[in-house]
């Protein structure tokens, strides 16, 4: 099942007003082609810690989950927002527009973004996760239902392609493209759109990543299934700010 069919499914399924559908449709039509930031991206199925497929409909509302994609060491936030997140155009680090294809799964509410801050590369590690999605309004940013990087208070909108709402970041987090199989309810990560920062990320953290993921494994692309779990179960400290 492709993302497009999934989106069509979503439109039929959720049966929002014609206006909403028209707006979403217009966004899709007017949009430039997605900026696939990676050649031949791996296709990875999301599974839970017990190895069973992660069912999209079982992902809790306001989930702040993590998995690794497209490399073994590169973290991704998997989020379920409350309202449908329609496709929209956002701008990359060079000011070039690209299409963020919107949420997938139930109500088009499941989204995923690289958990590597577009400002200064702070990221989510086992020890500490600096980027988190929270429903409640946080003290540092004054926003709720956003992704905040607590190192320098960059704030991103998960329901809008991770566009920057506040703070020093200048462009959105890289989007991880998702597919939802309506028949099996499984989720797949299939690519990256926007400004990926993997080269800079590996350069900045080589030492730490080698220690945590293995000397050469840290930059190996994922294959097959990848494990997704709540950030609170992965990181010793999911920073709130």
């Amino acid at each position, binding site marked *: 099942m492709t993302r497009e069919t999934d989106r069509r499914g979503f439109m039929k399924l959720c049966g929002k007003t014609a206006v909403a559908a028209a707006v979403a449709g217009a966004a899709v039509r007017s949009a430039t082609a997605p900026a696939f930031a990676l050649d031949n991206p791996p296709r990875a199925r999301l599974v839970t810690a017990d190895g069973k497929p992660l069912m999209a409909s079982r992902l809790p509302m306001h989930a702040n989950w993590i998995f690794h994609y497209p490399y073994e060491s590169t973290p991704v936030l998997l989020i379920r927002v409350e309202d449908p997140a329609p496709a929209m155009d956002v701008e990359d680090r060079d000011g070039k527009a690209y299409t963020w294809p919107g949420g997938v799964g139930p109500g088009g509410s499941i989204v995923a973004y690289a958990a590597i801050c577009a*400002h200064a590369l702070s990221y989510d590690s086992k020890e500490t996760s600096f980027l988190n999605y929270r429903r409640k309004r946080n*003290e*540092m940013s004054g926003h709720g239902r956003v992704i905040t990087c*607590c190192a320098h208070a960059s704030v991103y909108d998960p329901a809008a392609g991770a566009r920057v709402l506040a703070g020093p970041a200048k462009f959105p987090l890289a989007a991880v493209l998702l597919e939802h199989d309506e028949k099996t309810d499984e989720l797949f990560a299939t690519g990256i759109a926007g400004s990926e920062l993997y080269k800079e990320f590996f350069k900045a953290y080589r030492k730490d990543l080698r220690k945590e993921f293995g000397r050469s494994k840290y930059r190996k692309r994922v294959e097959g299934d990848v494990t997704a779990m709540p950030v609170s179960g992965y990181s010793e400290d999911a920073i709130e700010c």
Partner: protein
Amino acid sequence: MTKNTGKTGLGRRDFLKGAALASAGAGAGLTVAAGATPALAAVAGPLSRAADLPKPSGQRVIVVGGGWSGLTMSKYLKKNNPKFDVVMIEPNSTFFSCPLSNLWLGDVVDLDLLLHSYTDAAKNNGYTWLQGMLVQLDREKRRAFTTAGYIDYDYIVLSPGIDYNYASLGVKDPAEAIRVAQSYPAGFKPGSEHLSIKAKLDDFEEGVFLLNVPTGNYRCLPGPYERACLIASYFKREGIKGKVVLLDPNEKPTIKADGFLAAFKELHKDHLEYRTAVNITGVDVDKKKVVTEFGEVEFADAALYPRVRAARIIQDLGLADPKSPQMEGKIDNFKYTVPGDDHTYIAGDARPMPFSKSGNTANTEAHIVSKMIAARAQGKDVPWESPNTICYSMVDGEGKQSIMVDAKYKFTKGKGWGFTDVKLIEKRSKQLGKANIEWGKGLYRDMFS
């Protein structure tokens, strides 16, 4: 350091007298030997030659100073206009970070977190680092004279930082100012001052370790309070029978007051004494005491922080605002240019606007100013934006807990500059402690990689 002539000046005059006699003798000798020996130049040095630099590859921009402002400026000038040929002039051979240095003094982080390579910063970001100092500027010809030779430029950004004003501590004699600076260094211009303070703490066995808060707009508003907390934590951990005495001319901490006062009371009451509304009016190096309006305070050791001023070079170049009590640069507050000269900019802690003199302010300001200069070079203007002051303070060296503030600035006609968009988290936490350290790491990445 300011005013380092005076007593040594007497010595200089004696020396000059002697030199005059010698040169008269040499002159006589030359007359005799005329035609046989080439005449020696009376004054020689690098000011009369070009710096060893290749021909500029585009418009040349000089950045004076390799602190948080200069490093960010150099990187983003090049990023915002890849055709710029950027040369950063910085005399130090290694970058030593003042932000996070209190954490090192308190044994919370290692020294290598604070040290970074100018070579790598320049290589990674496509500019040239010239190890030297600016000494003269010909703004008409656009020629900068440095200890490494002169450089012709299209634009120059002055980010020289601060110097200390020891007269503010009642120490007016220059020789005495040098003694105070060497005996009890302030530790807000890294790194020898910091290495000295660290050695003092390593050697400290008992008694009072004296710190103070200066008057005026000093570098790192929470710095003295954070340092007091982290030294108190260190004394506790090491079982040292000592306490920090922090003298503050203000009634309460100048920033994050509630967070600091809570930490003083709840965590450090056995090792920290906070005295408010006290001004230091004199320092007695030999007797190890300071004089205040309320009597003397004796100490076993100290780090004394004088009022700061813009680095002396700003005044030497005739660019200081005579009305500024801290001799800061006179610039258009929204364009950063000096009056009548669109090719000379002043940024960082030498700026006249009453922004927090902090690393984060200098970094975010340089992002904006570099954009302005890149636009100006193409005959365009970009609107002013506020720099951002994100400022963490660790108040607990044992539990590694921090507090924070995040603020921007706005200008209101009739009122002047004020804070806006202020977010204050004064409840200390370990999570903010982690964010505190990551804050520094992120900005080192922004400047060096």
